[in-house]
């Protein structure tokens, strides 16, 4: 089963390599990973998408918790969270396809961030299902390049508080 782990780590050089090394050294999977500093510049936030049975996930969380540079580990999987990913899609757009590309972008509330006589570059934000969907619709036009950021996630605040 897929799990989303959110880590707060010391913002030091080598931390990413320690985390990546832990996963590769112990045979755990990383499906996606993103890192960036938080509002406190000494702390970075990492979102890791991983998978495994309960025992593997328990080991992963324990091993991460044990690492000296990791301040906090949260598993979002059984919690209510918001997840977003950004994709930049460079799509072929000539003649009538230019209209079609724009229509698809509008449906997905995506933006055209660059354009040339034969292409559009479309920026879309959402969870992986939404990104898959727009990619599938754009594919017949001819996708020249696709870049995805990997997901980031944040817990939803308790509405009853």
């Amino acid at each position, binding site marked *: 089963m897929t799990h989303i782990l959110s880590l707060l*780590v010391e913002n030091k050089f*080598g931390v990413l390599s320690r985390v990546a*090394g832990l996963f590769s050294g112990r045979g755990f999977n990383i499906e996606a990973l993103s890192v960036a500093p938080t509002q406190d510049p000494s702390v970075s936030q990492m979102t890791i998408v991983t998978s495994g049975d309960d*025992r593997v996930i328990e*080991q992963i969380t*324990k091993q991460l918790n044990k690492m*000296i*540079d*990791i301040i906090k580990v949260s598993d979002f999987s059984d919690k209510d969270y918001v997840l977003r990913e950004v994709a930049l899609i460079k799509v072929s757009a000539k003649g009538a396809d230019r209209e079609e590309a724009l229509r698809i972008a509008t449906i997905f509330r995506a933006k055209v961030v660059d354009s040339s006589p034969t292409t559009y570059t479309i920026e879309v934000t959402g969870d992986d299902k939404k990104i898959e969907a727009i990619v599938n619709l754009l594919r017949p036009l001819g996708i020249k390049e696709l870049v995805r950021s990997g997901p980031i996630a944040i817990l939803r605040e308790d509405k009853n508080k």
Partner: protein
Amino acid sequence: MKLSGAEIFVETLKKEGVKVLFGYPGGVVLPIFDVLYHEKEIRLILPRHEQAAVHMADGYARSTGNVGVALATSGPGATNTVTGIATAFMDSIPIVVFTGQVPTPMIGVDAFQEADIVGITRPCTKYNYLVKNTADLPYIIKEAFYIASKGRPGPVLVDLPRDVLANKADFVYPETVSLRSYNPTYIGNRWQIKKAADAILKAKKPVIYAGGGVISSNASQELKELAEFTEIPVTLTLMGLGGFPGDHPLFLGMLGMHGTYAANMTIHNSDLIIAIGARFDDRVTGRVKDFAPNAKIIHIDIDPTSIRKSVHVDIPIVGDVRLVLIDLLKELKSMKETNEVIEEARKHWAKQIKDWQKEHPLWYEYDDEVIKPQFVIEKIFEITKGDAIISTEVGQNQMWTAQFYKFLKPRTWLTSGGLGTMGYGFPAALGAQAAFPNKLVFDIAGDGSIQMNIQELATAVIERLNVKVAILNNSCLGMVRQWQELFYGERYSGIDLGEVPDFVKVAEAYGAVGFKAVKPSEVEPVIKEAIKIKKPVLMDFRIDRMEKVFPMVPAGAAIHEMIFLEKKKKTEKMKVVR
């Protein structure tokens, strides 16, 4: 006043209470050696190989309980430390290894003697540092000692670029360490301890399985109290030996692949295993899915990752072993209910265990012509009365020692359990001897392993570290030979070491003393003479080449599926031609 990085380094070590430094010089660490030239409080021991320096620091740490410290130069000096670091990592030994590094502006340009040692050792250290500013040295070194020794101990590496050592900065020694991201749990959870005490009272067939955590948390006294108060038998892992007296009536011996039959049967048939500072290593569990099928498991460990890593645990207790045992004992003493059914079952259990002990005790066939290795080990125990520090190499010598030497006290046993590093024992013994100059220190070795760090004879002689090395010499790599005999149709491949070298001459060449014993009657006089001589001694015991370590759990079997030494008829006896 501003001090150079090298001066700050030495001052900080002194503040950390370092008395002995095992260090090998080289280009980039020259500033440190220049400071050490005038240093009176720290004894510098110069090994002959950086790997040995780390094993020495490790032996020092295991025998004293304090952090051991080694120093090497950049590049090859640093890479040579890796085996020593990995050895300490697998056995959770607190050491700090300092390596030199090329000056910071040159890092990454493939400079002479440059190696990314922080990258190389990332998976085999508890933590490691590259120091970038001279002013950071005191707090980084303090943190390194803190991380190495607190929680589950382990090795920490600190990489010191040459310019960091040469530059000057104010020396400000921090009195405390606080790491927001590292706060081990020491006190066990109250409720879990209550649950554990309850399970212990209700168990009909309980057993204590204790490991190296008992040694690292100095909990052997508490373990003894627990065993005696509850009258529960104790088995120890290889790493745990010495954590419970080897001559205690409740002691079952070591468990696992070369454990005793009684220990393995007790574990296999138990209804409650109290695991204390042990990690259910594959050499202990055998085939995991058939491990102790009817047992509930209580697992006490400071490292949460050790719990439920390979076996299911019913009552996990995260905490320092000693502190948890104190709380558990308190809880048990407050409960004090007696139950006749349980008492009756316990009596039956004790009797069952006695029967197993009688059925297959540890034994070997004594021979009056050929020296049996177990006989040598028994003699060492007898002559020293168990009052010695014993290290071993890895292989048959290690298993025979674990089986036949009765370890009475903690921190008298130095062996590479997790990594299984041949060449560990001799330098580790030297490290222990440096810590305890007046104690008797033995390295029980094989003729293969001893040759992996035999150059340290020079260190022993020059530093007057009068370790006694007992080589159980079978002219081959005995453990490999044993596996080839039992599981590879006696196709002996790559194990013959020949009768080379002449160990007596090797000892003499280094200025040590060498003895050779061929007959069993020579064993005792040689050991006694070696102890008397105030020099390092190499004893070459020519043992039965075909002797094997028994009993044994074959690879992939469950731990109750053991194979035993069969009694041979006199005529079949292996003749060893020398």
